[in-house]
């Protein structure tokens, strides 16, 4: 009795149920070293049938690559180049105004650091996130707009030696400065309202961002 139970348990753990029926039929073909080639012939027979089925169900399945690339849009992105030495109130102000813009516009944002310095970074992060439960508007701003990323290449490319620096870019993919084409850059500690005011003097399209930021509600 015990042996039988053990045997059943052994079988159960060795072969999952879905494979058990097929094993005896196909096991001979597995002895052949050139298994894949033989199986290909078997597969080709069934292709038209399966292809029709798949095309009916998922019309874009063979066109997924083109579909995805054509659908890509350029997203307006705001980059804030910072370091751990920037005061936290300045950082909060930028986040709050980005969060305000995000209510109406589809905007990406990221805060870019030059390099990973563990000690200073951990101190800075703890300082930022301290006592955040009391301030609800700041809490939502941190949730929506905060994204720290690291990009030493763009610091070199844009010749950034002092922080903070604000930049406006159009990105096709992820919010990462070295992958995007950066349109406008303003060096020094500037608020986002001032930043968009200065940009809208050059290009009138960005006036709406400025108007949104100076709204009272």
């Amino acid at each position, binding site marked *: 009795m015990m042996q039988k139970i053990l045997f059943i348990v052994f079988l159960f753990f060795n072969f999952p149920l879905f494979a058990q029926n097929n094993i005896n039929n196909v096991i001979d073909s597995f002895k052949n070293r050139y298994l894949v080639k033989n199986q290909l012939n078997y*597969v080709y027979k069934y292709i038209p049938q399966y292809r029709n089925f798949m095309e009916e169900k998922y019309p874009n399945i063979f066109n*997924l*690559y083109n579909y995805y690339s054509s659908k890509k849009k350029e997203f307006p992105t705001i980059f804030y180049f910072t370091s751990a030495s920037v005061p936290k109130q300045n950082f909060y102000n930028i986040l709050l105004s980005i969060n305000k813009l995000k209510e109406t516009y589809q905007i990406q944002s990221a805060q870019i650091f030059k390099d990973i310095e563990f000690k200073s970074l*951990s101190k800075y992060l703890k300082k930022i996130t301290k006592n955040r439960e009391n301030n609800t508007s700041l809490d939502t701003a941190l949730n929506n707009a905060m994204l*720290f990323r690291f990009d030493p290449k763009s610091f070199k490319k844009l010749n950034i030696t002092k922080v903070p620096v604000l930049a406006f870019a159009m990105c096709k993919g992820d919010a990462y400065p070295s992958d995007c084409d950066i349109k406008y850059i303003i060096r020094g500690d500037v608020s986002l309202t001032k930043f968009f005011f200065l940009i809208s003097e050059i290009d009138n399209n960005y006036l709406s961002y400025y108007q949104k930021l100076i709204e009272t509600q």
Partner: protein
Amino acid sequence: MKKIIFSLLILIKILLADGLINFNTPSPPQALIPNGIFTGLDFQSAYKFIKIYGTPNTCKVSSVKDGLVGLKAHLIEPYLIAEAVKKPFYMRMLEMKLKNSAALLKKQGVLSKDGSKYVHILKFPIISYLLKSSQVNTNNVLAFAKPSIILYYMSEIDPSSWKDFLKIKMLPEIFYSISPQGLIASLVDCTAATTMNFDIAKTNKYLQNTRDMFFYAQGCNGLLSIGSNNDGQEAPFVTAINMIQSNIYEMSRYGIYKQSVESMFNKDKKQIWCSAEKGAKIKYQWLIQLARPTKGKILQSGTTSALFQDLKNNASTAGDAVFVIWKQRDYTMFAYQGGD
């Protein structure tokens, strides 16, 4: 006699798989640092993966301590070094040869025929060694794997690497990959992988799910059954990558390679943010990069240029190749307790 040796080999394999034969080292031994691996790593695209979000997450363990509330973050690190070599028992990444046990195995008729590649996989979390030397406690801020070197796999002593009959006993899911639906799966998997390579660091849940769902498909490498060593002479690097993938699949099934990225397979998402979990093979979690003889980019598995013809002119490693396998991780900063 044959039976005894065979059972011994299997025992060795199990021991290797469990990580019992390993050498945990507190500091990096200079001799064991793979030659040329540091220059071969693609750190530029690795920077893209490091993200720290503003959303808080709490990890409750046993008692509420200070620092268990943290921020959500994402990370990548070089975790495994895998190599495909022509000579048996030759470790290309360490530039050394193991003792001549090949002759013994050849007598028993266990060693595979000429022309096929041998695959070795070594756990080598390089970043943790680098940080250990600078005496920075980074377990809370950036949760890299703990420093330990383990030789996980050698295809020379694994009979299932050249006998499909044994492989099918270990992984019955091979049936999926050679079925008609496997062909369609590999087509879809290939398109998903190539689109993900565009913005490699961007998280797209639909594409991730398709990759994870067709875990048995080999991407753009075509219709290959997991872990088969069939195309040994035609495209050896494709077989090497296939065998590496199968090893990742097996090891994650045993629970040795852990799931550290949130996916459709794990239902309780909070566990991933707080600690690593034993689970299924998450294809999206593992990224492959060619390190030697030429430095490649970090790519989704199944899209690396693995053809032998690409590297034929480069004679610096005599036709051998070293791949670095990167591991992604979702975790809670200041509260992650996984370590692996």
